[in-house]
């Protein structure tokens, strides 16, 4: 005959089982996200590639002209998103980080005719092949 447990213990176990499911599910979801987006952070992917990159920032004005600018970087932000640099977190980590930074710059844009902030990301993987160019923007191009 099955042993009956007090209801409170059953409820506690159910809650803990759900907690375990959430804990494992979150880690698996972040791991899959990391692989799908080539962003090794937060999902246990480690050192998938060695990516060299540099970033050029520009304000986009209403008439379509672009003015290069340099965000007010400090400390680690300067190291990471300023000059030429490498990352082992995957190109996707830059695709995630840079738009957050562009939003910050856009919210502090110098004049109202700035309609977007853009970053040209130039990167190469493992010192092999050509440098690739990607344009990142805030607000995203389709949303302007």
């Amino acid at each position, binding site marked *: 005959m099955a042993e009956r447990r007090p209801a409170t213990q059953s409820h506690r*176990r159910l809650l*803990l*089982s759900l907690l*375990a499911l959430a*804990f*494992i599910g979150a*880690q*698996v979801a972040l*791991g899959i996200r*990391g*692989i799908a987006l080539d962003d*090794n*952070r*937060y*999902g*246990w*992917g*480690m*050192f*998938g*590639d*060695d990516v060299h990159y540099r970033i050029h920032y520009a304000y986009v004005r209403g008439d379509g002209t672009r003015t290069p600018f340099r*965000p*007010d*970087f*400090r*400390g*680690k*932000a*300067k190291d*990471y*998103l300023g000059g030429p640099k*490498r990352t082992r*977190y*995957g190109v996707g*980590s830059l695709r*995630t*980080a*840079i738009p*957050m*930074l562009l939003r*910050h*710059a856009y919210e502090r844009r110098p004049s109202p005719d700035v309609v977007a902030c853009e970053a040209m990301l130039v990167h190469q*993987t*493992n*010192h*092999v092949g050509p440098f690739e160019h990607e344009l990142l923007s805030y607000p995203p191009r389709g949303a302007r």
Partner: protein
Amino acid sequence: MSDAPQPVPLPTRLRVALEDFLFAPTGTRNLCLVRVLFGSVFVLRHVLKGGIHNPGAISLRFPRHLYESKEAYALAGNHPSVPGFEWLPVPSFEVFSWIEGAIPIFGALFAMGLFTRIVGPLAALSFSYVFLLSQLHYWHHAQCLAVVMMVLAFSPCADHYSVDAWLLRRRGGRPPRTRAIFPKRLLQITVSLLYGFSFLSKLNTGWSTGLVLLAFQADGSLRGQVAPLVLAFVSLRTLSRFTVLAEGFLSFGLWVPKLRKPAIAVGVLLHLGIDLLMAVRTFSFQMYVLYLLFLDEPKEADAAEAESREATPRPSAA
């Protein structure tokens, strides 16, 4: 009418298996040992400069700040927040420095097992707060610290080897002999997922050909003092393939009793290799400590003997 036992329905069998997997009673000595050692690594992470790749340059510094000056405090200017955590309040430089100073103190008390129920959550939450303030604060070892400390902080990891347990015994109490295996399972699964996703992220041409390590070498990242010696005997391609296979093996090998010892040996070799070749500080120590969670608990008789030894008052020096 047949006397044969009725087959147990599959959902019931699954539920029982799941309950057994998550809640089976077990001793907590290994978990408590992990608290002591992982808590010590947590403290070390906040005070250690340098690593065993260059033993001569190792130094301790308290508090060791992420931002050395107000001018360098990235959170005051442009920094990418962590998606989903933009709502976290960004403290002033002074408050941030104060938090950084408090974290290793909480960690030290946690490792000692003094007021564990309070300082454990404080250490885990304050560290996680700093970790989630900015994408600039991401490191793999920091994520591992945050996740493991969060589980340990809310687990019965002070039943043994702690000041709290000693105080309890002095008052005539004693912790339960067994507890649910739940926190240990969460940590074991984390270790497997860590190695599993690390393995999957390396299934590419860069790792199968050794190009990634070649790029590391070109960047000057393989700068351990023994690196030239190691690389004289082992090619980068071999090291590269060993790394990928080792991580894949560790993701399941630690669970299989017959493979456990070889898996631990491979893990130690892998992390020792990384530590000797690259500028890594505490990640390997974290992993060595977490291997303890896969070892069998001390046998009941040994545990009882150890408990009676702990409970016996020592003769005073006077």
